[in-house]
């Protein structure tokens, strides 16, 4: 049995010559330190690639059923969710493997940065890696559009409005982005071509380059405090180390990669099976009320940053800031390609990572809770807390009715329930006098800030009642 198989393999290999190419790759020496516990830091890159492979396979599977036409995408997604055997699972896996890939790419990038593995001679590997990060995020963004539900539709609207702010060329960029004068089938087709052909093409080409560079320049050894990178001597030192104590990659090192990738796949499959597919939240009908578009989780930090910025800085943050960030990432190996690699000797690098992740975490939390969004149903859905209406006079009760009816609750909470666009008014009676209340409600925020002027929206009788009610909201009552 084995002999004929062996013979077939030999026939193939004598003509294709693959084993002459692949076997040396697998046996190429890596620093001995990777065999030890430090080697576990090296697994994130290959795990990202494993999830990429999963994305390609599940993506092809989805493309067998999904119809990228504006009037049929939603129906084809429902078919995948409810009729296609295991279609729901493939959709869920595609989403969570994609999320996992973003997490792992970031982990890989952070590890490479903290271990100084981007320094000489691997600067180009880092630069290509930044391109790969951009492609991964681009796949996430374009994939959301393909879900073609109200979130996707209004997400495109927001993207179009952002593009429209480009000076001079704004309208042209909007047309190119949307594929036409309105958001429609042309937009979906465009984003389908981006998600399935263009970005994967760039991604795979960059990945090939990235892997080639890793093979060419070798895997860096675990950093040792005191061992500095000196471009004049590094190559000789590195090759000497490999010759004296290097071990083949196809051994402990590859085993660590495979084990971690397997664990990641198990986790991602479990999440997909338990949580199920994401959306679509409904047909992409622009007239459906209650639309509250949110970007996908990797972009919540940018959403929060924009929402919390002063309006004057918005166009700069939308258009220029991302370019600055990408530029900073690209320039890292050019400004610090030598010196210490161990994180214990690089306090600036460690501080930068801690700060960046703390800021990203805080902004992501803010983006997820988005307190700046009015709660559109609070005025009719959140009753005035009972404690605030007990024992009130008739005019105060009327004031409470007016307060709700004028939609104030959409932005102002009472007892923590309601919108958080403006301050909670539970104790406003102790904070503003009647005159100040009338002034604030009538004229809004001075200078046209966050609160509109209600002077013309409220009759004098309604204003008196409302001010009576608000003045009664005090700690002692």
């Amino acid at each position, binding site marked *: 049995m084995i002999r004929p198989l062996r013979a077939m393999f030999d026939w193939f290999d004598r003509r294709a010559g693959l084993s002459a190419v692949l076997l040396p790759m697998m046996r190429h020496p890596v620093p001995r330190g990777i065999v030890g516990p430090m080697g576990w830091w090296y697994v994130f890159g290959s795990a990202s690639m494993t999830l990429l492979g999963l994305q390609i396979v599940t993506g092809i599977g989805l493309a067998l059923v999904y119809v990228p036409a504006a*009037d049929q995408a939603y129906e084809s997604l429902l078919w995948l969710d409810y009729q296609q055997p295991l279609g729901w699972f493939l959709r869920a896996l595609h989403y969570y493997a994609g999320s996992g890939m973003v997490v792992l790419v970031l982990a890989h990038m952070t590890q490479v940065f903290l271990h100084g593995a981007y320094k000489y001679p691997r600067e180009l590997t880092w630069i290509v890696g930044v391109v790969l990060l951009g492609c991964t995020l681009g796949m996430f963004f374009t994939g959301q559009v393909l879900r073609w539900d109200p979130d996707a539709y*209004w997400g495109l609207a927001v993207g179009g*409005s952002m593009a429209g702010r480009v000076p001079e060329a704004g309208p042209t960029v909007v047309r190119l982005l949307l594929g036409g004068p309105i958001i429609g089938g042309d937009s979906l087709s465009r984003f389908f071509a981006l998600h399935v052909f263009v970005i994967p093409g760039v991604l795979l080409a960059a990945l090939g380059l990235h892997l080639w560079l890793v093979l060419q320049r070798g895997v860096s050894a675990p950093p040792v405090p005191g061992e500095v990178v000196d471009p004049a001597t590094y190559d000789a030192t590195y090759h000497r180390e490999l010759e004296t104590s290097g071990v083949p990659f196809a051994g402990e090192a590859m085993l660590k990669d495979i084990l971690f990738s397997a664990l990641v796949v198990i986790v991602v499959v479990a999440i997909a099976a338990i949580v199920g597919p994401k959306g679509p939240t409904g047909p992409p009908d622009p007239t459906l009320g209650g*639309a509250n578009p949110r970007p996908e989780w990797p972009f919540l930090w940018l959403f929060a940053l924009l929402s919390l910025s002063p309006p004057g800085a918005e166009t700069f943050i939308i258009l220029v800031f991302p370019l600055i960030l990408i530029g900073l990432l690209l320039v890292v190996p050019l400004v610090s390609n030598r010196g210490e690699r161990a994180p214990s000797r690089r306090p600036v690098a460690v501080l930068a990572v801690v700060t960046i992740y703390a800021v990203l975490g805080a902004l992501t939390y803010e983006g997820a809770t988005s307190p700046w969004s009015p709660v*559109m149903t609070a005025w009719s859905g959140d009753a005035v807390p009972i404690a605030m209406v007990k024992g009130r006079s008739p005019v105060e009760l009327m004031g409470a009715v007016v307060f709700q009816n004028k939609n104030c609750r959409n932005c102002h909470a009472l007892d923590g329930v309601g919108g958080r666009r403006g301050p909670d008014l539970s104790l406003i009676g102790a904070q503003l006098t009647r005159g100040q209340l009338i002034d604030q409600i009538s004229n*809004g925020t001075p200078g046209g800030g966050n609160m509109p002027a209600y002077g013309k929206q409220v009759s004098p009788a309604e204003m008196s009642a409302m001010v009576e009610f608000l003045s009664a909201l005090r700690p002692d009552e």
Partner: protein
Amino acid sequence: MTEPHTDPAALGPQAPLPCGGEAPARRSFFFWFTALIGTVAGLLAGVPVLGYFVSMRKKRIEWVTLGPIDGFTVGETRMAAFDNPLQQPWDGVVAHTGVYVRREAAGEDGAAKFLVLAINCAHLGCPVSWFPQSGLFMCPCHGGVYYADGERASGPPPRGLFHCVWRTREDQLEIEAPHYPTLQDTLTDKQES
């Protein structure tokens, strides 16, 4: 005595060239001819293909009916939905667009007067909701608020809501089909707002 005419390639790269030491004229001609044909091929294929990628459909002006004038009450604002004629034939429900119509008091000549506002917030395009109780439009995304006349009331929007061009024809209210409005490409570019 003449030397045999040997194949130049067989003589190796350093060997002297035959025919008096100059490259034959046809080799140089062949090189430049190939360069020319190659350039022509590149331009013939490249220019139209690039043109395809960056070209945009001509802007069309189409009018769409929102309904009979009597269907709108004076002093009230309501949403009017229609299928945007600027759509592609396969757009489906995505082309089902809404605008806010406010019927105002009749003008001096007694003709019906309207204010038609696009649903897209002027900040970043999210759909605003009309609240008749307080007479305000509110945007769910970043808290932009507009008054009933579309003017900016508060929040991050840099301007008021986009106005649609409207007209009345035979007791029907019609508007110019709205493209996606942005700050530099409003629906009323020929006029102010």
